[in-house]
């Protein structure tokens, strides 16, 4: 026999539905999730402090240190702040199929063929209809011999080219490599370029 009360009020207290099975949350936030997910390496790599409390990786505000191995003299690191970095995101994340050449794999296509197609999908950019080499030549031929002063009227600094004209960039690089310290350098555990990465930034 069902009464009205059965409809109105449940037969349990505290409004906790006994029919529902409540499971503990997964993953359990009380666990050490870093180790659960095997993130110790990466966390050590980016940790700001070492377990003994000393300072670990500093927070770098520029990638100046990362490009020191390049041949060039970057007296000014291009960033968004100084207006020379530009905005790369719209370029990288553009997802417009019309802009890019699309290739489609047909069932009858072998994987070799497909790979070939993939490798050459952008080669058409250098075809005659898109790239007029003569024009390029014409234009480049119009460029005469330059002198540093002529760019300044158009707001271009020669330093932006980062040409290591006097070769000072390499000397510093070489000297610094000998004087590296084990302290506050970025840890690159899995790289054979470890030494390069660990050098101290230019000062």
């Amino acid at each position: 026999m069902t009464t009205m009360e059965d409809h109105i009020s449940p037969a349990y207290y505290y409004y906790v539905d006994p029919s529902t099975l409540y499971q503990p949350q997964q993953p359990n936030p009380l666990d050490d999730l870093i180790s659960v997910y095997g993130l110790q390496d990466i966390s050590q790599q980016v940790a700001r402090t070492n377990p003994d409390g000393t300072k670990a990786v500093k927070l770098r505000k520029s990638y100046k240190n990362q490009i020191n191995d390049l041949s060039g003299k970057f007296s000014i690191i291009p960033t968004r702040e100084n207006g020379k970095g530009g905005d790369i995101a719209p370029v990288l994340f553009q997802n417009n199929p019309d802009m890019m050449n699309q290739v489609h794999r047909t069932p009858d296509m072998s994987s070799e063929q497909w790979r070939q197609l993939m490798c050459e999908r952008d080669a058409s950019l250098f075809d005659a209809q898109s790239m007029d080499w003569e024009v390029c030549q014409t234009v480049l031929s119009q460029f005469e011999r330059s002198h540093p002063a002529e760019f300044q009227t158009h707001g271009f600094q020669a330093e932006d080219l980062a040409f290591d004209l006097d070769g000072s960039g390499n000397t510093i690089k070489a000297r610094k490599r000998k004087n590296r310290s084990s302290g506050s350098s970025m840890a690159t555990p899995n790289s054979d370029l470890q030494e390069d990465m660990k050098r101290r930034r230019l000062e």
Partner: protein
Amino acid sequence: MTTAVGMLQNNGLSSPQRQVTADVSNGLKAGEKISGAGYSKDVKKRSEDRVHTGKVTNAPELPHVEVNQQPLTLLIRNLTVFSIKELIQLLKISVHANQDPSAKKTAFLQLVVYLRNQFLKLYVLVKWCRTLRNNNFNTMIDLLNWFRGSNMAVNNCIWALKASLAGMTNAKLPNPDLITALEVLSLGRPNLQTHNFTLSGEERAENGQKTSAVPSKLILKTLRDMNIILSVKISLMEIPDQFKQYSVCDGRLYISVENEFEVQLSTTHQRMPLFFVDLKLLFNELLPLNKYKLEKVINEVLYKSPRPLFALYKILHNYVLSVQMYMIHAELLDLESNSKYAGGNLVHHYDSRKTTINLKYWSNSRLKGKCNATIGIEEQTGCIVLRWYIEEVAGSQSEIPVRYTNVLSNLGNILDEIMFNHSQMIKAELLSTGVLQEDDEISDALLFNVPSTPASVIPIQIKINVISGVFYVRNPSGLLTFYINQINKTSTTDDFIKVLNRLKLDKIISILRNMFEKVGWACNNVVKLNAPVSKDPSWAQKKILFRDLFVRLENWPANWYLIFSVISSNATCIIEKRIGKIAAAKGSWELKYLDNENVLTLKLESMTYQKILHLKKTSLHKIVDHMIIDSLNGLRMRNRICSSKQLGAVPEYIVPGDQTHHSSILSIELESFIGGSSALKYILEETMFLRIDYHDSKIKLFGKFRKNCKAIGKQYNETLMHFIDEDALSFYMSESFTDLNNIVQHFNTFKQKLMQIVTLTDVIEKLHDFYSENFSIVALKPNEISFKYLKNSKDDYDCRILIQTNDDSVKKLEIKLSPRNPQHIFQPFIDSNRLDYHFVFNYLQFTSGFFGVLESILTTSESQVKSTNGYTTVSLQLHNLSVYGLIYYNPETSTKITLMIELRNVFLNGSKKLRYFVHFADDEHISTKSPAYPLVHKVRNTVFMVDSTSLITGDTISGLASPKRAKAASLIRLADGICCDAADIELVIREVNDILKIDCV
């Protein structure tokens, strides 16, 4: 190794994901997105790896995040394609543009630098990605995402809890039974076990299911069991006396207390306490009861008390009493607002905590605050009692009830009785004073007699309103209303009587005033004195009231009143009549004058119109008398009025011959009248009399000389005074007056006249002293006396005295000697030297003999000059007032003899006397050869030298045998001069002159 790197935005946080090398070819449409399955597959692989490495954990799956993640290949391709297209674009534009080559160059360089910079970034990214060993960066992103999601869930939970907390503010949970509380909170009732019985009959009727109904047998059995249990239980319990009447029935115990309540109790087991079932109030069954609350209280008492029924009786009894008190309170409220007591006559205060009601009746009456009763619970009997607090009952009238029971049903009647009794008591008390009488016809009225005329009274009916306690009279006049209001404000019987007496006094005053005004008197209502005219310190104690009535006639002198002091006691009324002067000074009325000697005391009953009319005729004279007295007092003259009784003592000459007309006589002391001068004291009698004859408007001042001044008295001018024939010493001065107000002005005239008399008399007295034989007054005017004093005067007068007076005294006496007076030579001295006139008179008198003889000598010498050879001349030289010189000069022989006459004070027989001293001048030396010498010598010998022969014989001076010579008793011969008094100077001068006037041969 190819690494696909997803980018979070553009800032370089990457999520590395390891992919197989073959994924380069997998980077088609499907490869751009990494599916969850792929990922989990990947994880599985990795976990398998970890199993091998020994670090494997069974990590639960995390929700995968793919947003904003792209493969690195795609990124590089995107950038590369973009760069190529940009370059082509730039070159295409530059070909046709007519730009400065350097500008083109710059644009090209800028593009190149820009693109290189983008590749630089990508380079850094790739380089960093290579440092990640396990390519599990994406897991970190997932973990972070999961943390955020969990955090949000916890937050939401907290907020939801908080919201439900706010919704449950009204839920109150009893401490011991949290579960039941929750039931009640959530279900609205507790979940009770029903044992499958449904007690409700309705449901059984509807469904006809007998299984759920209680069998009636069970019910009856249970009731019987309960009856037994109850009977046993009650017989084992201690029962208060009030609970003796109980019955057990229907599973209940019925206990009823008469007139109070019936309570029903029950229990389920003998060992269980009794509990409450129902309650009825027997005195009023309609009263709604809060049985729910009562049940709680009673059950608690029954459960906890060691003697439950006693406690139950106590609590119920108190409850009943409280309810009854409240009902009385409600009834009183009703009585106060709706019954005959409405309008604030009845006031009560209900103190619910003390369960008392303080009742005040007659709260608008004069006795408010004294009319109290209290309703409360008597300690001995424990029932509600009304107690009437009345002070008087404590004494004699003990038969009056003050304690009433059965208050609840009988309240109105009790109040009526109390108020009636109280009114009777007040009446009795008022009657006991004797001021009020009982009315024979109307039993509840009191009579108070108020005079309607001086001789008659009318009774006033005064009644008490039993409801309000206020006294009232029927059809009151304005005055009566005022006094009834006053009566209703008094608090004591004495005050009550006082107000009544004041009413009587007011009435008497108004009756008198009415009488006076009808006959033509003017009653002054304005005058208010600080203190009553008639005073007696004992009156205040004897409850005697008094008030002054000021009346006057129009033609009376201003400020003068007849003052009637009405003195009223309970029984009688006396009127005192006085005369007084009242003037306003600085805003207040002051009694300036009051006749306290001639106070006339009358009874009220004797005040008649005849008397008032008579007063009108006779009072004026008295007023004038007093006015004069007042004026005299004001002038500081001692005086006294001579009333008609004292007329016998007054000298006859003052009493007017015609007695038909009224006249006032006052005696005045002379000295004070004149103003302190005692000059007249020796001339006039001390007492003077002032008579005012009203019929001919004359004021007369009578006086009397001490001495017989007839000789001089006749000299006084008629305008100055009149002598009364029969008595030559007495006189009067008369002035006629026109205005009684200004009667005082005449005093000054009298005073001046008297001063003149004083002066004149004084002067005359002096004159009389100084030459009685030859003295005669030839003329007497108010300011002038002319008289003769010289022996052989042929003049009209010898001397005249002008009297200069100011207001009250003689200022100066001016002595004028007649031009033909031989002493006229002194006039300049008299004028200039301001000599005392006594001195002057004495001096003139003293020297008059000398100057008399001198004049004769001078005249004879002149005549002799012609008859004889007449060489020798005589002349007088006045050195000063005390030294004269007589110079005999013979031009023929040019001889000069100077005879000095000096006035000297000498001591004779020890007393100082004024004497003449006659001698020759010292500075003048006359040689023996001078023809004058013999004369001088002769004088010395005959006049100056003592004649020894005559001394011996006692005979007269030889050779000059003159009969007069023998008289010269005062002569003292001093060899070089002679001394004599005023009487003998004539003789001496003549003697010397006889010798010297002979011319030298």
